[in-house]
């Protein structure tokens, strides 16, 4: 009987020890070293090159830059849009004194985009900023 009781206690103790060990392993973070690194793969795919981007300008100084504002018919941002471009123009003039600016021109978001693009290219700008909204 005593032997049986001892075995039972031993068994319980072993189980408890086993559980404690297991619990300890489970509770510990996988990496408790000073630094853990996680290296992951990039999910993006390869994409064929179809068109080349326009070469970027070495500087905006001496260049003609068009600022274009798209205005959807229900556009709440209109006053802010013009204020935005006034501020951009002031900053640009300060940094690039010889820049020529085509000041905010509007195009409607309802106009065909190819038409708007043609209108912009006809101004023969060296670079263009287009926004906002729409």
């Amino acid at each position, binding site marked *: 009987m005593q032997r049986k009781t001892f075995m039972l206690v031993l068994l319980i103790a072993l189980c408890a020890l086993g559980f404690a060990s297991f619990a300890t392993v489970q509770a510990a973070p996988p990496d408790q070293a000073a630094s853990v690194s*996680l290296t992951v793969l990039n999910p993006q795919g390869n994409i064929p090159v179809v068109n080349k981007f*326009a070469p970027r300008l070495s500087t905006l100084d001496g260049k003609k830059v068009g600022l274009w504002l798209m205005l959807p018919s229900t556009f709440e941002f209109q006053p802010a849009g013009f204020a935005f471009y006034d501020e*951009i123009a002031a900053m640009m003039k300060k940094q690039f004194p010889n820049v020529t600016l085509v000041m905010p021109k509007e195009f409607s978001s309802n106009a065909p985009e190819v038409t708007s693009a043609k209108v912009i290219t006809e101004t023969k700008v060296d670079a263009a900023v287009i*926004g906002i909204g729409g």
Partner: protein
Amino acid sequence: MGTIAATLEKAGVPVFVIQNDRYEDRMMAGVQQNGYPDIARYMANENLEYTAEGGKKLASIVYPLLVDGLTKWQPQYLKQDGNTWVPTSSTFTYSGATYDEALAKFNAAYLNDMFWGDGLPLTPPTREKVDAMLAATPLTPTFSLGKWGGPNADFTVEKIAVNAVMAGAKPQYFPVILAAMQSLTSVSWQNQTWVVRSPTPLIIVNGPIAQQIKVNSGADVLGANPKYPANSSIARAVHLAMVNIGGSGRGLQPSHLAGPMGGLEALVIAEAEDVEALMGKGWEPLHVQLGKPAGESFVSVMGINSFAPDVSSNITTTAHYIAPDSAHWPSTVEAFQKRTVGVLLINELWASISSGLIPDPRSLAKIHTPTKAAMSKFMYEQARIPRSEFNALFLTNPDGTAKAATGAMAEVLKTLKDTDPVPVAAGPNNFLVLVAGGH
């Protein structure tokens, strides 16, 4: 805006775009359709005040980016390698004092910086996990299932595996994910437009693999059921692959104004093939209907434009729930002939996918056409648009005058009398009957 930007770049004019961030997918669709993977831009915070003061505040944020955009910009997450744009880095490393800290940094970067996700925490796609996924297919990692998306991105087995790991998919799901992606990439992405809405891919799994990986065909078949993780994680893997592989490092969504119908980009179901045993001949599973051997595993993908669940209809009125789709009348006769109406029979509930409603197959025993083919024929005959409604929708100018039918529509109308209602699909075989759901 995207087409304007791309046209200017093509003309040799460097461009910088400033736009409200909610228009990003729409703008990028225009950019990518015109052969560019990305564009120099700043996506403005929608919450900036719509005042002159707000405009000035925005200018101070945007100005340095604008100057860089016109003078030294290049895509942030892609670099040119010969005739291909490739990711700037094949791996990223995130470090922390603990694993949890590194994991949090990974999730913050992938979800918040690159938008490579769906907003929920991702499983880190480590080399080991991706290799385990790749081991579930005999295909080589570089094998391409197809080119798809606005930028015509290469959907290789390895890239799909990376996204599948991120989605939390188990390797045993990978064959189904690959089959679904092969099907999806075989359809031109323009048919899954990014602008207004996109069809939700319904991925239907038939054959032994459905049971092997436990794809749900019963209760909650269209929803998330924790007893069946395969459905949710396959759907999530497909979604992530669609937005990440061709997303130019932006996680572009394949839909914009409304988005897909599900929270995820796809729905995954298995057909309840045991219905054949219950109902007998005429209730063969979908893949057998499509001519495949019964013992073969098969994945079908159907793009869903509309979804009309109902619990109180009957077989006669069901067909009339199929909505006329004025925005998507097929532009060619061939497209009309290929158009499919999928009818999902739900045990104990009635529901349908892509327009129709049909009752529990057991209640069909009460009618005289209890086979899939008979139901398809019945739906074809009943699911028609009354001519007066058709004319009002399709053949009336805004000023109320009549206009002539053209293209596929004219060809279809030629086959009908002037007062006949117009079928929503070309023939009985265009009504695809599936069985799933219930208890």
